[in-house]
């Protein structure tokens, strides 16, 4: 079994590295070749100089005293990863019970209502959900919302002065230890919920469907015939077997989740990869400042790394969980 899966993983990994190299070169030819110090020399030479300078992590437009770009992108990346982790927790915590409830009451008004909710969560674009939650529950001066949560920013950050204490004129501190963890979660709650809702729409629908599929199978009929209670049938047979199909689906959608996280991160200005990437490109929006290619490349590579890892995890989960794929 391992040899088959291992070969597949290695093939995917090599392909991913190739894709990263193509993206790297593409960002040079699109953006780097226009940069003044490299303009005028031959293209191959410029490419070689550019490529050689990549590991230094010093962007062409920044001074030598700037920190390594990877440390800047790294902080942003860490924040995005935390957002994703919290999103997954919220998603599983809501999607699984909702799907079970809907499947257990198939055809009832409750099932209909849950399915309607799931459909809406799936069909409404993620960034619209994010704006709604932000204005509905975030603190916005002069806004109509309840103001339970901070509307923008990471714990201890007040982007553009949003969220500054009106008496002390200072940004609330992020605290230490447990308080800090609490603050981070408090600031992440709305973005994570916004991100989770869209994917709850996708996954609860899928999960409900696969639970119902399992419940229609002969072995479940046997279990019912042996006198197993309906509750036990649902939990032991329906949910358990459906989860085996659900986990790989969840893992392979991590890549999509990551893409959506970029948008949500930007709306809530968490300072994650999305904010970083978009602000980076916005500097160039008027076409006067050249694009910082090294920074773009590092962000792109991290994005690709996450997508690749997600799809690899999906493949491994399928191989480990589904006996039909396993050969021994």
């Amino acid at each position, binding site marked *: 079994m391992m040899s088959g899966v291992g070969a597949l993983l290695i093939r995917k990994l090599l*392909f*991913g590295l*190739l*894709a*990263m190299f*193509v*993206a790297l070169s593409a*960002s040079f030819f*699109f*953006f780097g070749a226009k940069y003044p110090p490299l303009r005028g020399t031959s293209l191959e030479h410029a490419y070689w100089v550019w490529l050689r300078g990549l590991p230094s992590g010093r962007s062409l437009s920044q001074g030598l005293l700037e920190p390594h770009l990877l440390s800047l992108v790294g902080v942003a990346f860490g924040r995005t990863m935390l957002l994703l982790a919290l999103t997954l927790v919220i998603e599983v915590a809501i999607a699984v019970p909702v799907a079970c409830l809907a499947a257990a009451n198939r055809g009832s008004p409750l099932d209909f209502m849950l399915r309607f909710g799931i459909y*809406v969560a*799936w*069909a*409404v*674009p*993620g*960034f*619209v959900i994010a*704006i709604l939650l932000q*204005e509905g529950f975030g603190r*916005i*001066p*002069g*806004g*109509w919302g309840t103001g339970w949560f901070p509307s*923008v920013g990471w714990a201890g950050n007040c982007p*553009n002065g*949003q969220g500054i204490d009106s008496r002390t004129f200072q940004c609330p501190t992020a605290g230490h230890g447990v308080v800090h963890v609490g603050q981070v979660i408090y600031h992440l709650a709305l973005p994570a919920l916004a991100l989770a809702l869209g994917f709850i729409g996708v996954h609860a629908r899928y999960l409900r469907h696969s639970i119902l599929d399992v419940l229609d199978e002969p072995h479940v009929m046997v279990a019912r015939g042996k006198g197993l209670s309906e509750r036990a049938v649902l939990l032991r047979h329906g949910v358990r077997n459906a989860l085996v199909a659900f986990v790989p689906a969840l893992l392979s959608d991590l*890549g999509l989740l*990551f*893409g959506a996280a*970029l*948008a949500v991160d*930007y*709306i809530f200005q968490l300072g994650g990869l*999305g904010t970083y*990437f*978009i602000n980076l*490109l*916005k500097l*160039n*929006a*008027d*076409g006067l400042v050249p*694009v910082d290619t090294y920074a*773009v490349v590092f*962000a*792109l590579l991290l*994005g*690709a790394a*996450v*997508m*690749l890892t997600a799809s690899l995890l999906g493949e491994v989960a399928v191989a480990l969980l589904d006996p039909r794929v396993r050969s021994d």
Partner: protein
Amino acid sequence: MAMVEAESAPPHAESRPSASARVWRRLAGQPVALGAGIVLVVLFVIGALAPVIVPGGAKIDLTEAGRNVAPTLNGWHLFGTDGIGQDMLVRTLYGLHTSEQSAIAATLLATVVGVVLGSLAGYRGGWVDAVVMRLADLLAVFPALMIFLAVYTYFTTVTAWKATFAFACFVWIPVARVVRAEISSLRGREFVQAALSLGASDRRIFFRHLLPNASGTIIVAATSVLGLVFVLEATLEFFGLGVSTAIEATLGNLIGDGQRGVFELGEGWWTWAGPASVLVVVVVCVNLVGDGLADALRTNRRR
């Protein structure tokens, strides 16, 4: 496979309704999808006629009474007005005009490219298949938003047509994947093998046998691409890196301007809520129509 049965033409074939008639009848049995389709068509027609209905666009009205008006029947500001007194309903109509135009054009272009590449890959197999599918995999390694953001930056001063082109370059992938799978499975079927052994040319097999049988799959794929493009485009425009509201309003950049206006200028929630609700209605309707079509065409296959 209704078309196959019609091709092999048993004597009683005339007495059965044609495949398309059956699909229409099944669609008529789905009131939700049909209703969504009607809403969609009405919205698209209104959007397309926006410059005819309100020539010249939204008027700027800087008087105190004209600015930041909440949605009201008074003066027909159904979506309210923004910080410089422009009627949001008019701006939204213009936004819908641009958005639907580029979404439909991108979908058509992507469908044509996807069908051509997908069926080449599925029919020919071998290296053509490998090249096309690896190209698709290569683009799928990166988060779509990141790729588009980079492309938008390259195109600085993005116009609606440049954006359309950029989208078509990427959304052909799902179409090509689906079409390839369908064509390569059809290719192994008996009726295609029979046509091949009778000496039919590739072109005849493709246009007479493969394309008509894959048409259902293609339509469903195109519908889902239309929804995808609407959402993706609005999301990108929302970031403010795409088409500027100063050049052309789209649903996405209106929502983005409105959302930033709430934070920075103290504008009302209605400046983004109007375009956002139109976007949501369009996307939900496209999805409902897509589901309905998929159902109607799938039952067709199962028979």
